[in-house]
């Protein structure tokens, strides 16, 4: 069959509704994630606007709580996870030399579950009592007592969970069964490795969340007392089950980011990745450890001393494989022929700022210190360093890195650098002061605060507006690049290695119909 014949597909809306093509589905995931980043970002700006000064001025406290809850759910399940799944769809078949994902129809369903899940979740804002307001962790008793918006949330989580599990099955089936001849596991690009491990984490974590929220649903409507102490249940059990999902979830959100950084840094250092095998083993170690540290989120709930010690030391151990990765990235850059295009800038910022988030994580891991930090803005600062300058910066780095392959055009480098610097400055202005707020005792999830916290909050709000609005520049750059610009070569970056750079830019609708042979 000719290439032109292969490129035939329905046009208009039917192309996107019925597509089983990994590139189309990747694009759908990425566009969906971008929209969700702006929805979640708007919620963040509501939060930051209310916190610009002490007192209640913009929104009522119940709506504020809905904003903190939905901001987290939208960013985690609607922004970061679909963005990485978009990268997986586009890149994994291209990187392993496969013609498509292993289960293309399932792939279509995985994606199309998501818009309906988020319509359900966001429509909860318009039902009597409003959306979920008990925090994204959905702790009982608040979540058992919440409005019907909580039921919408539970069903939306079920849909997202099914989507994630099906996506994970597809990724694993593709990587294990569709690699080009000669591509042994230890020849796979790091991005593929990190996604393989992430997919196993998804598979082992999401069903547990589904179980937890199903128990919540039956407690709410079917007379069970899983989490109701008055009926013989135990609200702390929910916390254990939730965080058995929740901590691996943190690594689901960051391991693909490690993979993206591990692709970009060697390219712009013009050197192979330092310590490839140790990177693989470090990723696998982090994944294993992520299942035995969950109770560090609940040090203050009242655990036996042995439990506190176990979870404290197990958590600290994660710093070892993470350190291996950070040193490997630094060693890759060492004596390399470095250039600083936008993907590399975001990747370097990722390494440095994620490490700050890692260090504050180590501080939080110390059980006696956590008794002071718990539920303060220090925790908010910590996880935003991990998730924004970690996951989101890696997503932006990856988008700039692979945009030439996806669109066939080079993006505007000057605008890219503007976007980078505005993002870095805006991000640090937003979140660095929150460390000090937390250490001084400002609690998280409150619409009002004591007057001594005003100045740092004002810095933080100004930073959030700078960071938020500078993301519009990214949208402009993506649209501009998709429409035209300097033609990208097959190998868009001088130092790039890997199968995806052997196909033309933009990548044809179907690639690797005949698998390449890897030496």
């Amino acid at each position: 069959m000719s290439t032109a014949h292969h490129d035939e597909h329905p046009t208009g809306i039917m192309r996107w509704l019925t597509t089983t093509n990994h590139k189309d589905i990747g694009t759908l995931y990425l566009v969906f994630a971008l929209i969700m980043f702006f929805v979640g970002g708007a919620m963040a700006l509501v939060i930051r606007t209310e916190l610009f000064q002490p007192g209640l001025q913009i929104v009522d406290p119940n709506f504020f709580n809905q904003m903190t809850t939905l901001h987290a759910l939208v960013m985690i399940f609607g922004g970061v996870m679909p963005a990485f799944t978009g990268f997986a769809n586009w890149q994994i078949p291209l990187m392993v030399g496969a013609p498509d994902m292993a289960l293309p129809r399932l792939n279509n369903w995985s994606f199309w579950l998501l818009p309906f899940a988020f319509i359900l979740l966001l429509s909860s804002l318009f039902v009597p009592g409003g959306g979920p307001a008990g925090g994204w962790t959905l702790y009982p008793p608040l979540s058992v007592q919440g409005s019907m918006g909580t039921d919408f949330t539970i069903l939306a989580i079920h849909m997202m969970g099914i989507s994630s599990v099906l996506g994970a099955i597809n990724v694993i089936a593709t990587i294990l069964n569709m690699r080009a001849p000669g591509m042994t596991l230890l020849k796979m690009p790091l991005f593929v490795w990190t996604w393989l491990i992430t997919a196993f984490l998804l598979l082992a974590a999401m069903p547990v969340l589904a179980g937890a929220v199903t128990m919540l649903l039956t407690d709410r409507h079917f007379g069970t007392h899983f989490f109701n102490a008055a009926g013989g249940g135990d609200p702390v059990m929910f916390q254990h089950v939730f965080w058995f999902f929740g901590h691996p979830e943190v690594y689901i959100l960051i391991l693909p980011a490690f993979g993206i950084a591990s692709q970009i840094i060697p390219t712009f250092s013009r050197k192979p990745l330092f310590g490839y095998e140790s990177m693989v083993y470090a990723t696998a170690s982090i994944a294993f450890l992520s299942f035995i540290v969950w109770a560090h989120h609940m040090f203050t709930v009242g655990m036996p001393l042995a439990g506190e010690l176990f979870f404290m030391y197990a958590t600290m151990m994660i710093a070892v494989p993470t350190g291996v990765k950070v040193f490997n990235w630094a060693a890759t850059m060492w004596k390399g022929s470095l250039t600083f295009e936008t993907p590399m800038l975001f990747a370097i910022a990722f390494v440095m700022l994620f490490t700050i988030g890692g260090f504050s994580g180590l501080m939080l891991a110390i059980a006696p210190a956590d008794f002071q930090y718990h539920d303060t803005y220090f925790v908010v600062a910590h996880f935003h360093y991990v998730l924004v300058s970690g996951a989101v910066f890696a997503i932006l780095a990856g988008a700039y890195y692979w945009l030439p392959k996806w669109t066939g055009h080079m993006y505007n480098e000057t605008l890219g650098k503007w976007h980078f610097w505005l993002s870095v400055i805006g991000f640090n202005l937003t979140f660095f002061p929150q460390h000090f707020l937390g250490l001084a005792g400002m609690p998280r999830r409150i619409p009002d605060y004591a007057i001594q916290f005003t100045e740092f909050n004002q810095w933080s709000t100004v930073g959030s507006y700078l960071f938020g609005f500078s993301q519009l520049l990214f949208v402009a750059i993506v649209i501009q690049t998709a429409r035209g610009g300097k033609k990208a070569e097959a190998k868009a970056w001088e130092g790039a290695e890997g199968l995806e750079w052997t196909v033309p830019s933009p990548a044809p609708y179907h690639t690797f119909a005949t698998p390449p042979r890897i030496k």
Partner: protein
Amino acid sequence: MPMTRLPESQRRAIVRTAVTLAVFAIALFVYTFWRGMSK
């Protein structure tokens, strides 16, 4: 537009992997729920 059909052995391997993983996920969901009930 259908792609070139994969070899039958590869198709079977994909289905085997997918079914095994799906059974694991469903079992984990049931186990979580069952542990909640037997607490």
